[in-house]
């Protein structure tokens, strides 16, 4: 699992950790029963605050994503309600891949592709918000 934290993005750090660990579980980068790095290891490797790592682990445990076995460490929990979601995420990846490949063939750079994706996504989100306000 490759954790990358943007400390000065303004997004709470424990939320960034939660998102990345959930994503790793959803995409199968870490699987059920596998051990997560200890709080100490994460804190030392990223040179970040251990209380913040502990807070992320506490919330992940509460959400049923991980299981903390005392004295042993944290493990990825049994498939949660969203294990169906992890299949959906892999399906969505398969749907998007040809579109991305087409973009690359058209000569778009990584950041341009990212921008296109994010623009389209925020357009969808804005439309949804506007629709909700109309009803």
């Amino acid at each position, binding site marked *: 699992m490759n954790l990358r934290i943007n400390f*000065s993005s303004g997004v709470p750090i424990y939320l960034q950790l939660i998102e990345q660990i959930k994503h790793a579980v959803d995409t199968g980068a870490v699987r059920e029963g596998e051990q997560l790095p200890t709080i*100490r290891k994460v804190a030392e490797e990223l040179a970040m*605050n251990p*209380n913040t790592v502990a807070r992320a682990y506490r919330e992940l445990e509460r959400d049923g994503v991980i299981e903390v076995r005392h004295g042993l460490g944290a493990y990825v929990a049994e498939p949660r309600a969203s294990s169906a979601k992890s299949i959906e995420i892999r399906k969505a990846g398969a749907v998007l891949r040809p579109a991305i490949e087409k973009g690359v063939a058209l000569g778009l750079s990584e950041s341009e592709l990212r921008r296109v994706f994010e623009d389209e996504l925020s357009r969808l989100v804005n439309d949804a918000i506007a629709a909700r306000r109309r009803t």
Partner: protein
Amino acid sequence: MSETIISTQGLLKSYSGKPALRGLNLAVPRGSICGFLGRNGAGKTTTLKLLLGMLRPDGGEIRLFGETVKSEASSIAARQRLAFISEDKELYPYMTVGQTIRFTRAFFPTWRRDLEEKFLELFRLPREKAVPKLSRGMRTQLMLLLAMARGSELLMMDEPTSGLDPAMTEDILQALADLAVSDETTVFFSSHQLMEVEQICDRVCLIDEGQSVIQGVLDDLKAQYRRILLVFDAAPPLALAGLPGIDHLRQRGRTASILAHNNVDAVVESARALGAISTEVRPVTLKELFLDHVRGE
């Protein structure tokens, strides 16, 4: 996390009639790493000196490790449990690293050889190197070793990483992370390096003109505060300034930039009702919090 290691209530200090601290309230719980922020002259060094018993307050209360620090005796009792690293990082120039460690060790019956070895290895400090030949970063590392191997429960530092290169800074931050995990050591340090504070601190205290203006868990502050960017057809309406929940408002042309906390959704709704044609809500960085609070209007 419930025990409060550093606490001040209404702390007052003036230098020949000129107030440096105007009722400072401070609370740092055990095991946290707290960044102490503020402009030069905001009162940071005065606060550290008062906590260390180097100065006496004109009023207010200091509690360290839960005990009121009033008399010289209570101050000494507290000082035995804490360590301080000043900004100038003075060491004896005629000793080597190893001699400095041996010399210091003799004063402290609770000296931790395991921590001494651990930090020597982590910092790759050569025992035989003469103190004057140490780089600024290595001096900081040696001082950190001396401070921690004493078995201190509280480490206070005045700008520990000023003048250090990024690699050295990362080593120091790693050591602090390690201390907070292993021994529940509480760390309180002043700094102007907002990036390193965001990286290593779980709490911050921002002071301005001798008073605390923001204090708390950094992730909670980031979750509470938002920057709201508004665009209007004409100059932003004056009523904007009166909206509840607004900390700061800046206007330029047809746009307004608002720093708000807690009440963000209501502020956005009200701004729309006042005719904002575009609204954007963004997370706030520590740097923005700092600048918005210490610059004033």
